[in-house]
C-alpha cells in the first residue's frame, strides 16, 4: 500500500500544479496564454519540459520491454540515433519555427503551412492527418498508466482502473493549467525520472548480485548471449530505425512547444543537453530490460521467459490465438516495474513508481497540442473565434481535451498490442514521413501547397496500407513471411514486429516517397507569390 500511497501523492501534486498554473493565468487569460504559456517559458523549464515531452511511456516501459526481448540493440535503435537527430532537428528546424511564430503569431504548424503555401483547406487536410496519427501516441500514455498501476499494486488496481485514473489526472491538469501547467508538470516529471532512473539501476543491480555477475552469466548462456549483441536485427533494419527520430520535430506537440520559449537562446542549452538526458534515461532502462532475462526469481518475469521459450520451441505448430496469448505473456512492457517491485525497498518502489508514472503521463503535451490544433486550425480558421470570442475558443479547447481523453481511454481498453509496436509503427512512422513538409516549407522556396497535399495523402494512404496488411496477415512465429517477391528479392514481408519493405521498416519508403512527391509535384505546380516568399526567405 505504501508504493500506491506515494504514487497517489504524486498524482495529487501534479493536479495541484495544474490548478496553480490555472490560478496564475486567470489574470491574463487568453488563447496564447492557455495554449503557449504566453510564449514566456524560461530556459530551465524549456529544456526539461521539452525533453519530458519526448519521454513517454514508450521511453521507459517500451524501451525496457523491447530490450528484454531484443537485447542491447534497443539503445542503438532509438536512443543514440534520437540523441543525434532530435537535437539537429531542433537546431535547424525548431529555431526557425520559433522565429516565424514570434514574427507572424503562429500557434500551430498548420497555421504556418497555410500562410507559407497560401492555402486553406489543404491545411485542414494536414490537420486531419496529423490528428489521426497523434491519437495512437496518446493511447500509449493511457495504456502505460494502466500497466504501471496494475504492476505497482500487484493487480489490486486493475488495468482499466489504472488507465482511467491516469487519464483523469492528465486531463485535469491540462484542462486547468494549459501549456503553463503542462510545462511545469513535465519539468517536475523530467527531474524525477532523471533522478530515479540511475537509482533504480543501482538498487536492482545490488538485488541481483551485481550486474557484472548477471552479464557474465548471460555471456555463458548461448540463448541469452545474443541479447548482448545486435545479431537479432539486420544492419539494414538498424539503419532504417534512424528515420524514426525525424518524427520528433514533425510531431505537432514538439512544433508547438518550440513556440513557447521566451528567447531563441533557450534552444542552445537544449540541443547540447538533450543527448546527455537521453543517455541518463535510456541507458538504465535498456540495461535493466536486458538484465531482467536473468531475474528468474521474479515470478512474473519467469512466466514471461517460459512463454518466450514455448513460443520458440513450438510456435509454428500453435494456432494464431495461442501464439498471440503467449506473445502477450512474454511481452516485457512491465518488466522494469517487476524488477523494481521485487528488488527495491517498499518506500523506494513508490518513488520509482511515481517516476515511471511521470514518464507515462507525458501524453499531456499531445492532448494539449491536439486541443490547440483543433481550436486554432479548425474552430478559429472557420470563423468560430471571430463569431463567439476568444473566451469561447479557450473553453472549446478545454472541452476538446475532455473528449479526446475519453476517446483515447476507450480505445486503450480494446487494444492489446505492445506499447512499443503501437507507437513506433503508426505515430512515429507517420510523422517521420511528414517531416519533409517542414523541411520544404522552411528551406525550399519552390515548394507548393500541391506538393504538401501529395505528401499528406501519400503518408495517410501508406500508414493505412501498413495497418491493413498487419491486421490481415498474422505475425509469423518464426522468420518473416514473404508477402511479395520479385526476382528472388523480398519486396514486402510480415515479421513478428510488423511489415517490412525490402527488409526495411515502412518508414524508409514512406519518407523517401514524401521527398520525391514534394519535389515532383511542386516543380509541376505554381509557386507561392513573391510577397509570401519574401516573408520567409
Amino acid at each position, binding site marked *: 500500500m505504501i508504493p500506491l500511497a506515494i504514487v497517489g501523492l504524486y498524482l495529487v501534486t501534479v493536479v495541484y500544479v495544474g490548478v496553480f498554473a490555472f490560478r496564475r493565468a486567470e489574470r491574463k487569460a487568453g488563447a496564447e496564454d492557455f495554449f503557449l504559456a504566453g510564449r514566456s517559458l524560461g530556459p530551465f523549464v524549456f529544456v526539461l519540459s521539452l525533453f519530458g515531452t519526448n519521454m513517454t511511456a514508450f521511453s521507459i516501459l517500451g524501451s525496457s520491454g523491447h530490450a528484454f526481448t531484443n537485447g542491447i540493440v534497443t539503445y542503438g535503435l532509438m536512443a543514440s540515433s534520437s540523441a543525434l537527430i532530435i537535437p539537429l532537428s531542433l537546431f535547424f528546424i525548431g529555431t526557425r519555427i520559433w522565429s516565424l511564430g514570434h514574427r507572424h503569431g503562429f500557434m500551430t504548424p498548420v497555421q504556418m503551412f497555410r500562410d507559407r503555401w497560401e492555402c486553406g483547406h489543404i491545411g485542414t487536410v494536414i490537420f486531419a492527418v496529423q490528428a489521426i496519427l497523434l491519437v495512437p501516441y496518446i493511447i500509449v500514455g493511457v495504456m502505460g498508466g494502466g500497466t504501471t498501476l496494475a504492476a505497482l499494486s500487484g493487480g489490486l488496481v486493475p488495468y482499466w482502473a489504472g488507465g482511467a485514473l491516469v487519464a483523469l489526472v492528465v486531463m485535469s491538469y491540462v484542462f486547468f493549467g494549459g501549456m503553463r501547467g503542462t510545462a511545469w508538470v513535465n519539468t517536475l516529471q523530467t527531474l524525477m525520472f532523471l533522478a530515479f532512473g540511475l537509482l533504480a539501476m543501482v538498487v536492482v543491480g545490488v538485488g541481483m548480485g551485481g550486474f557484472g555477475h548477471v552479464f557474465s552469466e548471460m*555471456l555463458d548462456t548461448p540463448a541469452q548471449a545474443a541479447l548482448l549483441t*545486435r545479431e537479432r536485427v539486420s544492419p539494414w533494419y538498424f539503419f532504417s530505425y534512424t528515420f524514426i527520430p525525424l518524427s520528433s520535430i514533425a510531431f505537432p506537440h514538439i512544433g508547438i512547444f518550440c513556440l513557447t520559449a521566451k528567447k531563441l537562446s533557450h534552444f542552445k542549452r537544449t540541443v547540447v543537453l538533450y*543527448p546527455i538526458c537521453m*543517455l541518463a534515461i535510456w541507458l538504465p532502462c535498456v540495461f535493466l530490460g536486458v538484465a531482467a532475462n536473468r531475474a528468474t526469481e521474479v515470478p512474473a518475469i519467469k512466466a514471461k521467459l517460459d512463454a518466450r521459450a514455448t513460443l520458440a520451441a513450438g510456435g509454428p505448430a500453435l494456432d494464431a490465438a495461442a501464439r498471440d496469448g503467449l506473445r502477450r505473456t512474454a511481452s516485457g512492457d512491465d518488466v522494469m516495474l517487476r524488477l523494481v517491485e521485487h528488488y527495491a525497498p517498499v518506500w523506494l518502489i513508490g518513488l520509482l513508481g511515481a517516476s515511471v508514472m511521470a514518464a507515462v503521463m507525458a501524453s499531456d503535451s499531445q492532448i494539449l497540442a491536439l486541443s490547440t490544433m483543433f481550436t486554432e486550425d479548425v474552430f478559429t480558421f472557420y470563423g468560430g473565434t471571430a463569431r463567439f470570442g476568444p473566451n469561447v475558443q479557450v473553453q472549446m479547447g478545454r472541452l476538446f481535451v475532455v473528449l479526446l481523453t475519453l476517446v483515447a481511454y476507450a480505445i486503450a481498453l480494446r487494444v492489446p498490442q505492445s506499447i512499443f509496436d503501437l507507437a513506433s509503427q503508426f505515430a512515429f512512422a507517420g510523422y517521420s514521413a511528414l517531416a519533409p513538409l517542414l523541411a520544404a516549407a522552411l528551406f525550399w522556396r519552390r515548394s507548393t501547397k500541391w506538393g504538401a497535399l501529395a505528401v499528406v495523402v501519400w503518408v495517410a494512404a501508406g500508414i493505412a496500407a501498413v495497418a491493413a496488411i498487419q491486421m490481415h496477415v498474422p505475425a509469423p512465429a518464426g522468420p518473416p513471411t514473404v508477402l511479395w517477391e520479385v526476382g528472388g528479392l523480398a519486396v514486402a514481408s510480415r515479421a513478428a514486429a510488423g511489415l517490412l519493405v525490402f527488409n526495411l521498416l515502412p518508414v524508409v519508403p514512406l519518407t523517401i516517397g514524401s521527398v520525391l512527391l514534394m519535389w515532383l509535384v511542386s516543380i509541376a505546380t505554381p509557386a507561392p507569390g513573391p510577397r509570401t516568399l519574401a516573408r520567409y526567405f
Partner: protein
Amino acid sequence: MLTALGLLVFFALHQDVWLWRESRPLVFGVLPVGLAYHAAYTLAVSIVMAVLVRLYWPSHLEEPDR
C-alpha cells in the same frame, strides 16, 4: 560544406557494423561493448552539438519583428 560532410561521417559512425556480433569485452565489467560504444557515441553527440551552437548559431533569427 565541410560541416555537412562531418555530420554525415558522424551519422555513419552510428552504424557500427564492426561491433555487430561482439559482446565482449564487458566495459567497466558490466557494459557489453556494443552498448558501451553507443553510450560513448551519445556523449560525443553532445560535444558535436556544443560545437555547432558555438560556430553556427543562427543568430539572424533572434530578432523577432512582431
